[in-house]
């Protein structure tokens, strides 16, 4: 499959994994390997002296690039501080910018997200913002210097798939930076659809980590993303109202 390129950096996989929700680091490790991912998110939290093992060890062992997120932040100020702490702790200026509006829906706050994006770009970060399926906001964030845009398919962890494929297509049509479908993926067909709609990559976590067999679902997602990408590149046939014979007509 052709490489995914974000901010000039190449990735041989178009499946970006999250690490949340896995019952253990061992289960996570096997799922990450099965997914073939080359880029994976982590969250920043207070250090727990009792914690054993680190998600960072797993990523380092598998040579997977770490993408810190700002999950749990409700304001631009919180997100900027979290990104700076992640840069300090992990030695990367990449950040998945995530500023949440409320606990119940976990939908992204567009105003705070845009504010934080401008400040982080000015501070030299490579910013990948998580946003609603809003073509206007996606365009504004690209103009503000973001390296990609990450519209949701449905609320985080909902597994509802892509609720508004038309908006995703509009974002893809206008974007000059990679579009990464983030959140809402429930099963393999959702990931394939994202790629068929023209997304450059898919980011998912829960669909794999909370599946009954995470490593098997990770393999399914890998196949789905590749199949969807190939179908997009191949160019699908138009939808027709009536049949069109595929065998020669007549005697």
């Amino acid at each position: 499959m052709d490489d995914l390129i974000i901010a000039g950096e190449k990735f041989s996989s178009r499946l970006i994994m999250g690490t949340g929700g896995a019952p253990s680091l061992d289960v996570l490790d096997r799922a990450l390997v099965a997914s073939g991912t080359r880029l994976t998110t982590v969250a920043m939290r207070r250090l727990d002296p009792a914690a054993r093992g680190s998600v960072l060890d797993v990523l380092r062992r598998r040579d997977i690039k770490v993408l810190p997120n700002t999950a749990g932040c409700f304001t631009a100020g919180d997100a900027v501080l979290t990104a700076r702490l992640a840069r300090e702790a992990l030695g990367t200026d990449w950040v998945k910018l995530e500023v949440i509006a409320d606990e119940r829906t976990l939908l992204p706050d567009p105003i705070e997200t845009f504010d934080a994006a401008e400040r982080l770009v000015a501070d030299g970060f490579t910013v990948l913002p998580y946003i609603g399926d809003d073509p206007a906001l996606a365009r504004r964030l690209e103009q503000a210097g973001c390296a990609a845009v990450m519209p949701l398919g449905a609320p985080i962890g909902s597994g509802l798939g892509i609720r508004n494929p038309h908006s995703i297509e509009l974002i893809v049509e206008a974007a000059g930076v990679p579009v990464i479908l983030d959140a809402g993926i429930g099963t393999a067909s959702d990931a394939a659809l994202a790629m068929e709609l023209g997304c450059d990559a898919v980011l998912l976590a829960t669909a794999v980590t909370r599946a009954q067999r995470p490593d098997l679902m990770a393999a399914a997602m890998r196949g789905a993303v590749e199949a969807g990408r190939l179908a997009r590149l191949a160019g699908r046939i138009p939808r027709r109202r009536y049949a069109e014979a595929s065998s020669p007509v007549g005697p």
Partner: protein
Amino acid sequence: MKVTINGSAREVPHGTTVAQAVRILTSATTGVAVAVNDEVVTRGTWETTALSDSDRVEVLTAVQGG
């Protein structure tokens, strides 16, 4: 003096540095970042940055998420 480290109030000697505060929680120095009163303290200055009374120290690391 009293400081808050990751949300817990702690009594520490005057002149306690950021590096000493971090060592209360962990011996790790990589994969860890510190903010004092919402400002990042870069690792190179942990040993030379002294805490003041009622400072809020946050020691963060990467965990599973996203």
